[in-house]
């Protein structure tokens, strides 16, 4: 019987472990393996390739700029998302008529497919008839429709800014909700005490609310960093990483490479994967994760 008892977790957890094994763990092994193989156009393995795939990748003229752009992409999108979400959470934590319905509106970009949201903005930025350009033209900001100035997505700088805006837009709902649930965990008498001590509302926010929100902010930031790093549909639908690779992040770059050389793409994948692990570890270390968990 003791032997049987020891096996019973296997019975209950076995299917879950098997699913994780097949879908998450094994692909990582295959990916790492592929990154050291020479793979032909049809996907057939031609042979062992040593570190050639990695050497090719590092020699790509766009490699460094793609990595730097990925860093910029993640930092800007997550930072702006967190700042706006802190404000939005404060707003939606107040009591006002119709709060439930307005919160429903807030979740739409979260529930809708990111690909569709990206396509809406791609259309709205169309240089000739896109609705954002039409409005900006009415306001006198865009001098002439169809001009170079109206071609936001054709110019790498402005394209990146617009795509970052879309990435922020679709990240806001989850982040705001995460902070809202953090706010709801703060007991009201904490504020009363702060007010009695003479703290103004802004001071109370900085000294009382923000520190208490720390766990919620930590988790939301971590999840956002991972989501934004892996983000694919926005850049894919709006610019395909172009012109050239000038708006590509490392995820987009990996997919573009896959069409040419699967082995090299696997190397890029492996580096992305390691970056995710590094991000998680660095994040956990710098934010004093251990104390948060142990508490």
């Amino acid at each position: 019987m003791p032997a049987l008892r020891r096996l019973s977790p296997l019975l209950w957890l076995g299917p879950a472990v098997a699913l994780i094994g097949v879908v998450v763990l094994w692909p990582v092994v295959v990916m790492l393996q592929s990154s050291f193989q020479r793979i032909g156009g049809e996907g057939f393995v031609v042979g062992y390739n040593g570190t050639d795939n990695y050497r090719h990748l590092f020699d790509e003229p766009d490699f460094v700029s793609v990595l730097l752009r990925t860093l910029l992409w993640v930092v800007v999108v997550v930072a702006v998302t967190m700042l706006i979400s802190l404000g939005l959470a404060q707003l939606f934590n107040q009591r006002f008529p119709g709060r439930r319905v307005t919160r429903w509106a807030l979740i739409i970009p979260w529930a809708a497919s990111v690909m569709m949201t990206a396509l809406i903005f791609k259309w709205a930025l169309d240089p000739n008839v896109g609705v954002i350009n039409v409005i900006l033209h009415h306001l006198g900001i865009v001098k002439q429709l169809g001009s170079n100035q109206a071609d936001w997505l054709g110019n790498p700088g402005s394209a990146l800014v617009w795509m970052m805006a879309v990435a922020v837009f679709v990240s806001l709902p989850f982040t705001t909700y995460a902070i809202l649930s953090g706010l709801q965990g703060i007991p009201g008498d904490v504020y009363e005490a702060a007010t009695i001590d003479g703290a103004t509302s802004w001071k109370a926010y900085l000294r009382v609310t923000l520190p208490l929100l720390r766990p919620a902010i930590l988790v939301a930031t971590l999840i956002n960093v991972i989501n934004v790093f892996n983000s694919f549909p926005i850049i894919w639908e709006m610019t395909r990483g172009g012109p050239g690779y000038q708006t590509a992040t490392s995820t987009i770059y990996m997919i573009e490479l896959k069409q040419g050389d699967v082995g090299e793409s696997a190397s890029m994948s492996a580096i992305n994967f390691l970056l995710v692990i590094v991000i998680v570890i660095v994040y956990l270390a710098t934010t004093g994760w251990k104390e948060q968990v142990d508490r």
Partner: protein
Amino acid sequence: MSATTQTAPLLSPKTTRSAPRQRLSVRRWLVAGTAYIVAIIFLLPYLEMLVMAGRPNNELGEATIFPKHFTFSNFTTLWSGGGLGGSIGTSLEIAAGATAVVLLVALPAACYTARHRFRGRTAFLLLVLATQMFQPAAMLVGLQREFTTFGLASTLSLTIIDAGFNLAFAVWILNAFFSSIPVELEEAGMVDGLGKVGALLRITLPLAAPGIVTALIFTFISAWNEFLVALTLSLGEQTSQQPLTVAINQYIGEYSVDWGHLFAAGLVATVPVIILFIFIERRVVGGLTAGAVK
């Protein structure tokens, strides 16, 4: 949550208001006004989808915010020729299949980890947490090569993959629900003559129903919206065998885009899941963040 009870006096004009109360209500309406504007901003892009879907084709080239006429022809012609009906079926198949797999696999795991302390429990929960951190994008090449070797139909592959990447959410939220149900309730049921299984089915599962529904809907929506793996695995398939997110891209041609049909299809793809999401709105954050704090 108690918004209605709080605002009741505000809505009745008979209430006598003192000066500070008046100020408070001005502030409250200011807050409400700001929130309404924010809500409209979040809604606008999707309303634009409706405006575009209803714009007649001959007005596509006009630089106007609203079309002069509104047509439903983009919706009615959506089903003919392009095979979008088939794609909806494929998407439903994948999303429902993934949801079923997640439920079958996550329920026992979550139930067991919530009720028992055993060797390997922490390791298992850590493994689940790790899968939540890894997304298909980071291992796409591996996924593609592995599932090509399996030689399964892309629909089945996508079902399994979507299930795998949504398992973590379901395990966390179900684990939290099961943990919050006192064991004494089950024991009471067993004393009353329900067997161990009976107590589980008649007492624990109904109490965990909100968690189960949340896990179901969340998995369904993520599988329905999944784009990258679907694009990679179903690229060579016929349109009707592609999920909706991939099939919609057929309206994007090399030189021109059929925006009318694209957005009509987009509404079909997004409106149902937005409505579904409203049902789980309050609980979904718990499932996404629970694992990371525990």
